C-alpha cells in the first residue's frame, strides 16, 4: 500500500467518526431539551408547600421521562455498542443532569436515594456495562451530588413556605449521603471537585436546622406530618 492510499483510508475512518459524532450530537441536543423541560417543571416545588402539589409535579416529570427513554433508544443506535467510552464525552453532561432529575423525583416521592439500578430503569438504560448502554458510576455519583445542592435550596424554601419538618428530614438524608461519599477514595478529577462542594450544602442545611431549633420551630414539626398541609 502506498503512503497516499494509507492516508486516504485513515481519512475515511476519521470521516466516519465525525459522522457518528454529528448524529450523537443531534440526539443529545434533543435530550438536553427534555432535561430542561423536566427541570423547569420540578423547579415548581420551590414555590409552595403541600405534598399534594409536589407529587403532582413528580407525576408530570415521570411522564417526561418517557420521552427520555425513547430518545435514549435512538442514541443507542447511533454508534457501535462496544464503543461507549469513545463517545462518552458527548452525553456525559446530559446524563448527569438526567440522573439528578430522576434522583430528585424519587427523593420527592419517597425521600430516599435512588439506586443506580432504579435510575437506569427510569432512563431506559442498563446499570451494567456488560448489558449495553449503561450508566457510568461516576456520572451517577455526579448526579447525586447535584441533588444535594438542590436539596439545600429546598430546605431554605420549605421554611419560607412554612414547612418546618422538611429541613430536618433533608438534614438526615444529606448527612447520610455525606457519610456515604466519605467512604469513597476519589481521584483528583471532576467528581472530586463536585464532592468538595457537598460540605457547603451540608453546612447550609445544618444552619437551617439550627435556625429552626433555637426558635423551637422544629418541635411543632416533630408532632407529626401535620406540619404539611
Amino acid at each position, binding site marked *: 500500500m502506498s503512503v497516499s492510499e494509507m*492516508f486516504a483510508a*485513515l481519512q475515511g475512518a*476519521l*470521516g466516519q467518526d465525525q459522522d457518528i459524532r454529528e448524529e450523537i450530537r443531534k440526539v443529545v441536543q434533543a435530550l438536553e431539551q427534555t432535561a430542561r423541560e423536566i427541570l423547569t417543571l420540578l423547579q415548581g416545588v420551590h414555590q409552595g408547600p403541600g405534598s399534594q402539589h409536589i407529587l403532582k409535579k413528580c407525576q408530570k416529570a415521570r411522564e417526561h421521562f418517557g420521552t427520555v427513554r425513547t430518545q435514549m433508544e435512538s442514541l443507542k443506535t447511533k454508534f457501535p455498542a462496544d464503543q461507549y467510552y*469513545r463517545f462518552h464525552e458527548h452525553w456525559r453532561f446530559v446524563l448527569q443532569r438526567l440522573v439528578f432529575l430522576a434522583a430528585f423525583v424519587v427523593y420527592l416521592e419517597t425521600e430516599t436515594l435512588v439506586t443506580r439500578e432504579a435510575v437506569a430503569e427510569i432512563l431506559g438504560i442498563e446499570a451494567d456495562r456488560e448489558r449495553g448502554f449503561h450508566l457510568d458510576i461516576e456520572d451517577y455519583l455526579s448526579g447525586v451530588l447535584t441533588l444535594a445542592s438542590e436539596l439545600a435550596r429546598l430546605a431554605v424554601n420549605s421554611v419560607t413556605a412554612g414547612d418546618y419538618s422538611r429541613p430536618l428530614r433533608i438534614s438526615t438524608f444529606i*448527612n*447520610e449521603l455525606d*457519610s*456515604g461519599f466519605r*467512604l469513597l477514595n476519589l481521584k483528583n478529577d471532576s467528581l472530586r471537585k463536585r464532592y468538595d462542594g457537598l460540605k457547603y450544602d451540608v453546612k447550609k442545611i445544618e444552619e437551617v436546622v439550627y435556625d429552626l431549633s433555637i426558635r423551637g420551630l422544629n418541635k411543632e414539626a416533630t408532632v407529626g406530618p401535620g406540619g404539611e398541609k
Partner: protein
Amino acid sequence: GSGGFRKRKHDNFPHGQRREEKENVNPPSALMTSFKSFQLELDTRHDKYERLVKLSRDITIESKRTIFLLHRFTSAPNGEEILSESEVKLNAVRQKIKQVAHELIGEDMYQFHRAISPGLQEYIEAVSFQYFIKTRSLISVEEINKQLIFTAEDREETTNMTSNSRDKQPHKWSLKVTPVDYLLGVADLTGELMRLCISSVGNGDIDTPFELSQFLRQIYDGFTFIGNTGPYEVSKKLYTLKQSLAKVENACYTLKVRGSEIPKHMLADVFSTKTELIDQEEGIP
C-alpha cells in the same frame, strides 16, 4: 506556640468523635451498603488505570531507547547487528503491550485510552522507524495491529512451561491501535527521520537525504489530505511536521548546490557546520 496549637486540636476532637459515633450507632443502611460497593468499584477502576499508566511509561521508555539505538544504524558498520538488537528490544516492548492488552480484556479500551495512549504512540514511532530503515516505506496500521495479537501459549513457551501449555486452551487477545494514535506516532516518526537525514549527511551518505525528503513529502501530503478531519492533536503536529520537512528539503538543497563545488572529502565538514546551525534553530522555540 505549640500550646496554642494543642489547644486548638483539642477543640476539634469532640467534633470528630461525634461523627464517628453517628456512623457506629446506625446499622449499615441501604445507602451505606451501596456506597461501599461504589468504593470497591471505583478503587478497582483506579487501580487498573494506575497499572496501565505504569505500563505505558515503561513502553515509552523502552521505545525511546530503541529509537536511540536505531539512530546508530547509519554510522555503525555492523548494521545488521543493530537491527536485530532493536528487534529484541521491540519484542520486549510488545511483551509490555501484551500485559496492557491483558488488562483490557473485556473492558472498553476507550475507557482507559488516556492511560495508554502516550506509550502506544511512542511504540508506533519506534516500530515505524525500524520498518523504515529496513524497507524504506511506511508501516501500515494493519501491519502494526498484526504484531499485537497475543496468545496465552506464547507466554508459557517463553517461560519454558511446555507441560502446562497443553492443559490450558490457547487464549487469544489483541490490542488495536486507533487511527489517531497511529497518526500521532507517524507524525513523531517524521522528527526522527529528519534527525536521520542530518546525521547521514554527516557520515558522507548523500543518497539518503534525497530519499528521505521524498518520503517525508509523501507523509506531509497525507497529513494535509487529512487536514482538520482529525482531532486537534493531529492538526497541532502538522506544524512541527512542516518544520521537519523544511529542514530536510533545505539539507537536500545545500547538497545539490554545494555538493558539486566541494570536493567529496570535505563535504562532511561543510555539512556538519550546517547541522549545527539547524540544531541551534531547533533550540529556539
